[in-house]
């Protein structure tokens, strides 16, 4: 099996597994699992699928995605939407919203992120990290400090737990970001993705 096929299979299997109703409801039963496991995994499935795209599709997307900037803007904007309490509630109340989540996170977040990140220049990478990582902390802090329950479908203690984890995740990501100043994995520099 070629690496492309392996990526395609892994991405499609991940997406299929996340869509299985028992796993889907288990991951959505808790706000933390929903935000910090299911949503990132959906994006990861899209990132894997990006690696499996045929050369012609990659060339076309690369032409539209100069320096990776339009793609990263798309990924950041759509991922921000899925942090809004109302968006989390909506997928529990409506099948259409659920479908939109399963389509938009792989195709409009994971895929453009995987195609764009390696192409961003160091300043653009720094800009993205310096905005997106604190955004996680701010969202987490809002969830922690909100005087009211923000999601009608989640308990207050789940909101607090999710907020807590979001803040911790942002600290972890900030530490990793600092670490890359000294150590650069291949994915970071784009050596692996600019095939």
């Amino acid at each position: 099996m070629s690496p492309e096929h392996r990526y395609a299979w892994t991405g499609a299997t991940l997406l299929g597994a996340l869509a299985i109703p028992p796993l889907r409801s288990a991951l959505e039963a808790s706000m933390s699992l929903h935000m910090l496991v299911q949503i990132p995994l959906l994006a990861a499935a899209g990132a894997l699928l990006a690696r499996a795209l045929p050369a012609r599709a990659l060339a076309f997307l690369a032409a539209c995605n100069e320096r990776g900037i339009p793609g990263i803007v798309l990924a950041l904007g759509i991922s921000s939407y899925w942090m809004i309490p109302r968006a989390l509630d909506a997928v529990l109340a409506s099948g259409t919203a659920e479908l939109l989540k399963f389509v938009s996170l792989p195709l409009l977040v994971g895929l453009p992120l995987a195609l764009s990140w390696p192409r961003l220049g160091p300043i653009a990478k720094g800009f993205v990290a310096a905005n997106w990582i604190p955004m996680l902390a701010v969202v987490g802090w809002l969830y922690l400090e909100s005087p009211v329950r923000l999601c009608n479908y989640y308990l207050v203690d789940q909101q607090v737990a999710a907020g807590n984890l979001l803040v911790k995740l942002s600290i972890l990501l900030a530490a990793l970001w600092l670490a890359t100043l000294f150590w650069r994995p291949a994915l970071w520099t784009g050596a692996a993705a600019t095939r």
Partner: protein
Amino acid sequence: MRLAAATLLALALCAGVLWAGTDGLSAFTTEQARRLAIARHPAAVPAALLEDGTGRSFRLDEYRGTAVAVEFIYTRCRTLCAVMGSGFERLQGELEQSGDELRLLSVSFDPEHDTPAALADYARRYRADAARWRIARVADRSELAALLATFGVVVIPDALGEFQHNGAIHLLDREGRLARILDLDASAAELRAHLANL
């Protein structure tokens, strides 16, 4: 040039999603969204069969002709519903003083525990005057689900055998439509102002 066009397109798509998903950046939570939707488009509510603490049954549409403020409770609740109970007690006093005709109705979403006796006990606890304020349960499970869905009330059981639910004052206009959803601490004067603006 192409970079600028593609970036603008991506920005426009994201802005469109955020705009549509938050009603023009005005509703970031389901609670804000339902209040906004009801204020824009008052909704017809089902004529659910209710049963009060005296065991008497009546339908929600019997209030037609009089405006009524509705809230959803369960009587074992010691947190949010206690705020709602004393809030309605305060409103009852204000309405009495101003001679308003607005009625109050507390609807229990826990028919198993909230027997007529439990409802009567809740009425005593908050000194509810039956002519102004009734406390009732929805006996039929399927009617209850439809009623909660129309009002946008989500009830989830928690680990302690109690419930978490969104609390608000739901204002039904004289035609029996759900016309406004307001904060729990709204005063009689605020309710009156909203009713006058319908």
